């Protein structure tokens, strides 16, 4: 479904990605690991379509369609979801209203009929229960005054509502304590399916204890330098990045 | 030698004003009054070239058409320019090569001020250019600085030795027509400092000048010009104390900073002139124009601790002309008794991605009035400019006033401007907490005020910060209860 070929990308005139290639099939879970500054978050932002990142070479194809020229919202409606490392606070906009607009826009693009407020509310409550989240959540302002854990749970909640084909989790484990980590990962696990793929970006192995990846890639200096199965993450845990990078 | 808090309070309670004494130095003083003749006299006494005299006379003609500004939140009687002595120099017969040649009375004065030149030289590595009244008496570390090509001398000397630099830059940032006091200063300035840092040179020590008003009824009209060439750095300290006078003394200085591409100028001031007595009698009138222009990627940083003067009218400003230039203003202004302070800054954003930060802390006690007045002006071309301002006022006692007048003008939608301000009294819970832990009321005020000012104090050079902290405590210790 996702095919990245020889991707080069600049941020503020600095080369960050230098020929990255990656291929993800339906239903697969890929973990991308790497030290700070290796380009992990850049990769997520480029796939999601952040305009601050300038692609200088290469291609990103999603279901055989080049998406690099598409706006962020078009990609989102096609089924690309990114869970932000730092979810943005939007004072004055409630979670429920936000999700209502997002869901119905996505449905419109997919030629599905709009959901009524009542239908949506029912669905939101149902998904909140699945994620063990309080219903009061819906009437709060987006991420405004949320704790770190609440913000990450809000991201997973939106993931559950938007039903994307590809979900990219950018450092979803950062800033979470062990209990919050368990809740978030069980939420993610419940959303896994044969049709939905995940790219999990993380610095540490610990998230992968809870979400088992099919493939693990090590990103260093803007390129994937090693790929393997879940055991690669364990090897990394044991030897550190230095052991692999040499 | 570090004084304990108790000692400081004791000293300050025993004497009204620590630095209130008159030194008996023989002076060369001209008659009161201002006329073309006075200006010609000043110029000739200083052996100035004709172009300088012409500048002075032009400024004097402008001055005659101007009026004293009245927009500030300060009250004072019209200043009579004819009742001021415009030139007073200690009689120096020959130029001195070492301190031994300096009038022992002057050295005594300096020692009583606690800034003995030897001490300064040996302990802190600060090159001190001491100005008593209007003429530079002694400059130290000159050789060391000149090895690096740094020029640090009196402005009079610079006019004679480096006319091309002075001619090019003087009045380029603060033209005489800028305001009444700038015109006055340009017409009659007696002396001041000149500083030139060549390209690529980082000045290895803090350059410092201690100003001191001495002669009765003498107006001080300092002129300071600092030029930082490309990629250079300089930190400049200005500190002031003045003896008690019943007659109000006018001080109208002009400071101009020129920060060329990628250079940085840091300008710090501790101002502790005689503030007048409890009834508002005496004290220095301080009308100062300070402004710097920052070229490409240059940075200008103003830090000030203002505790003295009966009237302070002062707005150190930055013109952020070059792309990516940065302006900063950190200020503490303390007023008590009947002091009046109207101070703040102007940040003029012209270049792209220019950034400015303003942090102002006003503390009012007694029957004083303290105002913050600031302008943030984002011009149309200042794409992606950023400003953050925070202006807090603290009130001690129910008879003082604290005022905030920020002006924000935005003509570019890519800019981001944030301004915050709070006004409050010292927290009762904070006071109680301190007292419950055995800290006396006065000490607690000092402690809380110092904490409150921390954001600004940390921008002062080390030794200056210590002095400023002590000054805050001394200033405020009798304002509670």
């Amino acid at each position, binding site marked *: 479904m996702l095919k990245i070929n020889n991707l080069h990308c600049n941020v503020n005139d600095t080369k960050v990605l230098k020929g990255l290639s990656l291929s993800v099939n339906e239903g697969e879970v890929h973990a991308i690991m790497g030290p700070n500054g290796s380009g992990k978050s850049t990769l997520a932002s480029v796939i999601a379509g952040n305009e601050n990142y300038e692609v200088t070479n290469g291609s990103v194809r999603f279901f055989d369609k080049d998406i690099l020229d598409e706006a962020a*919202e078009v*990609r989102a409606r096609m089924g690309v*979801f990114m869970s932000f490392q730092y979810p943005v606070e939007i004072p004055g906009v409630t979670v429920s209203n936000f999700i209502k607009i997002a869901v119905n826009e996505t449905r419109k693009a997919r030629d599905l009929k709009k959901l009524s407020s009542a239908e949506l509310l029912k669905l939101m409550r149902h998904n909140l229960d699945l994620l063990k989240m309080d219903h009061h959540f819906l009437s709060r302002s987006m991420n405004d005054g949320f704790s770190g854990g609440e913000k990450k749970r809000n991201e997973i909640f939106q993931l559950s509502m938007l039903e994307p084909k590809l979900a990219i989790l950018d450092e979803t484990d950062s800033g979470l304590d062990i209990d919050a980590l368990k809740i978030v990962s069980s939420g993610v696990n419940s959303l896994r399916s044969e049709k939905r793929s995940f790219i999990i970006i993380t610095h540490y192995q610990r998230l992968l204890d809870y979400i088992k990846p099919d493939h693990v890639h090590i990103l260093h200096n803007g390129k994937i330098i090693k790929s393997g199965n879940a055991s690669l993450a364990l090897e990394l845990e044991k030897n550190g990045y230095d052991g692999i990078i040499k | 030698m570090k004084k304990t808090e108790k000692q400081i309070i004791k000293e300050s309670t025993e004497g009204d004003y620590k630095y209130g004494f008159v030194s008996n130095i023989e002076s060369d003083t001209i008659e009161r009054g201002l006329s073309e003749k006075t200006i010609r006299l000043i110029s000739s006494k200083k052996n100035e070239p004709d172009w300088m005299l012409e500048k002075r006379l032009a400024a004097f003609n402008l001055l005659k058409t101007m009026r004293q500004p009245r927009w500030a939140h300060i009250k004072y009687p019209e200043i009579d320019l004819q009742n001021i002595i415009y030139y007073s120099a200690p009689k120096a017969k020959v130029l001195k090569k070492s301190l031994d040649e300096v009038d022992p009375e002057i050295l005594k004065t300096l020692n009583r001020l606690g800034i003995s030149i030897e001490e300064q030289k040996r302990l802190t590595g600060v090159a001190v250019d001491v100005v008593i009244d209007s003429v530079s008496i002694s400059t130290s570390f000159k050789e060391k600085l000149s090895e690096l090509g740094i020029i640090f001398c009196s402005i009079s000397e610079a006019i004679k030795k480096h006319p091309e630099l002075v001619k090019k830059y003087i009045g380029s940032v603060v033209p005489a027509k800028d305001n009444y006091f700038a015109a006055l200063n340009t017409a009659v300035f007696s002396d001041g400092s000149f500083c030139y840092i060549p390209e690529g040179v980082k000045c290895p020590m803090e350059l410092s000048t201690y100003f001191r008003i001495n002669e009765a009824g003498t107006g001080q009209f300092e002129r300071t010009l600092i030029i930082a060439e490309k990629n250079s750095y300089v930190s400049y300290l200005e500190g002031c104390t003045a003896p008690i006078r019943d007659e109000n003394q006018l001080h109208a200085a002009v400071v101009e900073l020129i920060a060329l591409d990628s250079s940085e100028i840091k300008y710090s001031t501790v101002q502790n002139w005689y503030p007048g007595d409890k009834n508002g009698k005496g004290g220095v009138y301080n009308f100062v124009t300070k402004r710097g222009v920052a070229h490409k990627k240059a940075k200008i940083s103003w830090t000030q601790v203002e505790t003295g003067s009966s009237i302070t009218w002062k707005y150190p400003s930055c013109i952020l002309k070059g792309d990516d230039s940065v302006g900063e203003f950190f200020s503490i202004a303390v007023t008590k008794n009947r002091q009046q302070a109207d101070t703040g800054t102007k940040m003029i954003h012209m270049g792209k991605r220019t950034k400015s930060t303003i942090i102002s802390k006003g503390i009012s006690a007694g029957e004083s009035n303290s105002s913050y007045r600031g302008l943030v002006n984002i011009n*149309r071309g200042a794409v992606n400019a950023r400003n953050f301002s925070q202006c807090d006022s603290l009130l001690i*006692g129910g008879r003082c006033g604290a005022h905030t007048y920020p002006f924000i003008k935005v003509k570019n*939608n890519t800019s*981001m401007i944030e*301004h915050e301000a709070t006004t409050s009294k010292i927290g009762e819970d904070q006071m109680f907490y301190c007292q419950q832990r055995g800290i006396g009321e006065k000490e607690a005020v000092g402690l809380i005020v110092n904490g409150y000012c921390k954001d600004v104090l940390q921008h002062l050079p080390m030794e200056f910060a210590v002095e400023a902290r002590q000054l805050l405590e001394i200033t405020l210790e009798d304002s509670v209860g």
Partner: protein
Amino acid sequence: MTELSNNYTGSSLESACVKMAPYILNTHKSSKQVVVFLNNHLVKSLTDLSCLKSYSTIELEQITNGKKIHGGLKLDTINELANMTKDSRVVFVLNESVKQEPITIYRLFSDKMLPDHSNKVGFYIPTKTSITIRERLIFDTESTSCSNNFWIIDKGSSLTKYRLLESSFFKETSHDSKESFYQGENSLCNSFSFFLGNNDKSSRGVLNNKIFSELIGKSCNSNHRSISFLRGSACVKNKIKTIHHNIDCNSHEIYKGVFDHDSQGEFDSLVVVERGAINANTVQKNNNVLLSSQAKIDSNPQLEIFTDDVKCSHGSTTGQLDADAIFYLRSRGLSLNQAMGVLLKGFLTEVVEFLEDEEICKEIENSLKNLIKV
């Protein structure tokens, strides 16, 4: 009740008014709780007089001299008030309506009718009265019109007031408005002003909006909230002065502005806390979003504090919509316009959420929707 000679009567005036604002006056003509002014003069035939308890100069003297208005008024302020009201011809004493229904005041300005609109109009809200006003300003004029009102909110009373300008105002009209609020002990003033322009790029209306608020009694609460949303080269200048005369008073100002094209805004607000007016709590907030590179804003939130036991704060921000937030929203499937709309709506919530009047709330939301186009 004394009849006032300068009030408009007669059918020609009535028809002039109806001609000016037919869609409103035709529907409201027979309805209750409507007060109509044309060029600052009361149009009796269109007004439901039951809203007004009485209106006369004699009553006014009683109000200003007697203790009726007292509420901790200082003597010099009473005198000042007397002087101020002396030359104004009318002070309307507002009658509390039975079911707390809001009173709608139509203020029509036309240069086709009598050009004299310098008349000062005052409203008095008696003790322990709670009143809601919808004030609608409608213009049929190309010259600069002006209005000068004052509101006396007596001890223990509350005024909630919504001021709306027709969006067509901003096409090419100019108006100078001055409103003064005098508040007695324990009184509450909730004022909302909405200056919502239209999508016409050639709009060039100018509104000078002066608000003068005096908190005279103890424990007054004063809230002024406003939204300006302008396009074209329209301009709104808010000049506000709030004076705390007495203890335990709170004043809140929230002014939000969205400026597109060449439009410009000004927020010039001064809060004064007088000596002895302790325990004052003041907030001045001005937030602006500039949607175009040609839009301009001046923001001057000023404070003059003469006593120590106060909590005063002001905040001013000006900028664009946050690029990160826009990307976040787009990554969730919203278009650029939708993302901007959502953010603008969120930006304006701080004012809109305080609207208790459902009809007004709907109307404002609709106008904003038209402007934002989500």
